[in-house]
C-alpha cells in the first residue's frame, strides 16, 4: 500500500533582503497530518508546492502513490488537475461573488461565473451541512470570520477533492470561535475520512489534528511524530 503523503519539497527563494532555502521532506500514512512551526518557517510554501501553486526546484509530491510532481522526471500536474481542496489562510473568497457563487465556483465550467441563484445538488448539500444556506446571497465582506471559514471549506469540499490542505484555518478567528470550529472541522474530517494536511503555529491545533506532526523551522524539518508529553501544556 502506497503512502498517503510523500513529499520532498526543495526551493530556493531569494529576495533583496534575505535568502531562504526550503528543504522539507516527509512521508506519512497519517489521515491527519499537521505541519507545525513558527510563521516564516516555510509551511505555506510547502503546502503551495503540494497543491501545485508553486513549482519546486527539486523533489517530488506523491499522494496515495500517484505522482503529482517529480522535478527529475519532468512531471508537474497543473494545480487545476490535482483535485486538492485548499483553504487559504485568509480564505481567499472571491469578493465579487456571493456565498452561493463562491461555493459553486469549482463546479461551474467555462469562462463565466455561476448565476447568483445557481442550483446544484452538491452545492445545496454543503450549504446546508455548513449552515451557510441563510447566507447564500451575502457577499464575503458581509460575513464574520467563522462564516468566511465555513464558506471557504464548503467551496473546497464541493469540488470533491481527494485531500484537504488547510493553511492556518483558525488563525483569523477569535479564541472562543477557534475552539468550536476546531471541533467542527475534526468531526467533518472524521465523517468524510478525507486525508488532511493542516498548517499551524498553534499547539492546540496540532494536538487536535496531529495524528502525526511534522515540525518545520527555517525551511527544514526539525522534528516529527506525535507531540511529546513535555510540550503538552496549555
Amino acid at each position, binding site marked *: 500500500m502506497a503512502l498517503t503523503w510523500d513529499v520532498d519539497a526543495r526551493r530556493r527563494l531569494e529576495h533583496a533582503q534575505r535568502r531562504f532555502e526550503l528543504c522539507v521532506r516527509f512521508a506519512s500514512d497519517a489521515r491527519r497530518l499537521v505541519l507545525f512551526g513558527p510563521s516564516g518557517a516555510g509551511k505555506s510554501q510547502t503546502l*503551495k508546492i503540494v*497543491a*501545485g*501553486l508553486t513549482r519546486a526546484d527539486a523533489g517530488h509530491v506523491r499522494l496515495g502513490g500517484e505522482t503529482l510532481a517529480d522535478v527529475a522526471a519532468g512531471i508537474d500536474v*497543473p*494545480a*487545476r*488537475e*490535482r*483535485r*486538492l*481542496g*485548499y483553504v*487559504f489562510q*485568509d480564505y*481567499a473568497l*472571491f*469578493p*465579487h*461573488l456571493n456565498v452561493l457563487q463562491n461555493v459553486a*465556483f*469549482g463546479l461551474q465550467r*467555462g*469562462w*463565466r*461565473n455561476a448565476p447568483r441563484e445557481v442550483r446544484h445538488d452538491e452545492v445545496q448539500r454543503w450549504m446546508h451541512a455548513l449552515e451557510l444556506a441563510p447566507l447564500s446571497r451575502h*457577499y464575503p*465582506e*458581509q460575513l464574520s470570520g467563522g462564516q468566511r471559514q465555513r464558506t471557504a471549506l464548503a*467551496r*473546497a469540499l464541493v*469540488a470533491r477533492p481527494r485531500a484537504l490542505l488547510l493553511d492556518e484555518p483558525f488563525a483569523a478567528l477569535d479564541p472562543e470561535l477557534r475552539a468550536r470550529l476546531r471541533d467542527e472541522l475534526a468531526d467533518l474530517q472524521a465523517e468524510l475520512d478525507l486525508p488532511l494536511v493542516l498548517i499551524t503555529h498553534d499547539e492546540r491545533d496540532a494536538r487536535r489534528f496531529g495524528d502525526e506532526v511534522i515540525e518545520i523551522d527555517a525551511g527544514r524539518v526539525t522534528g516529527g511524530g506525535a507531540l511529546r508529553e513535555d510540550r503538552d501544556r496549555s
Partner: protein
Amino acid sequence: MEGAWIPLALTLKVAGWATLLNLVLGVGVGFVLARRRFPGRELLDALLTLPMVMPPTVLGYYLLVLIGRRGPLGAWLHAHFGVQLIFTWQGAVIAATIVAFPLVFKSARAAFEAVDPQLEQAARVLGLGEAAVFFRVTLPLAWRGILAGTLLAFARATGEFGATLMVAGSIPGKTQTLSVAVYEAVQAGQDDVANFLVAVTSVTCVAVLLAAGRLVPGRVAGAP
C-alpha cells in the same frame, strides 16, 4: 451650423474605434506587465508611456515616417494590400489610439496589480484553466479601474489634435475631426461655428469625465 454635426460624427467614430482598440491592446499589455516578470519590464512600461509626455506633433511625425507612403510599414501595406493610411480616417484612428494608449494600459496595469494573486491561485486549485481564471476572477475584479482609464482614453482621443493633423490632415467630411474643425473655423474667422464646436467638445468631455469619476474603484466591485 449644419456642417458642425459632420466633424462631431467623425470624431465619435475615430474616438470610438481608438477606444475599442485601446481596450483590447491596453488590457492585454497591462495584464502582461502586471503579472509577468521579464527583463526590461519597466523599460517597456516607460516606452509605452511616452505618448503621454511627448508632443503629439512629434508622435505624428514618427507615424508619418512609419506609415507614410515611403515609410517601412506604409510601403509594405501599400504593396501587399493597396492600403494607404495617410489622410484617411483610419489614419486618424491610429494617431488617436497611440496618443490615448498609455491611459488605458497604465490604469489596466494598476487595476490588475491590485487584484490579490491568491484569489487567482484559489481559482486554479478549484480546477480552472488560465483563461477561465482571467475572465472569472481577474477581469471582474479589475474592470472598474480599466473602464475608468478607458473613458479617459475616449476623452483624450476625442480631443486629439496634433498627431491627427500630421497623419490625417484636415479634409472636411473625411478626416476633419472636431478639434481640427475648431482650428480651421477660427483661422477662417467663422466665430459662430467655432463657438458651437467648442461647446459640443466641452460637453462631451465633461460627460465622459463625470462617468469616469463614478467608476473609479472606491468600493469592492460587485458588492451590492
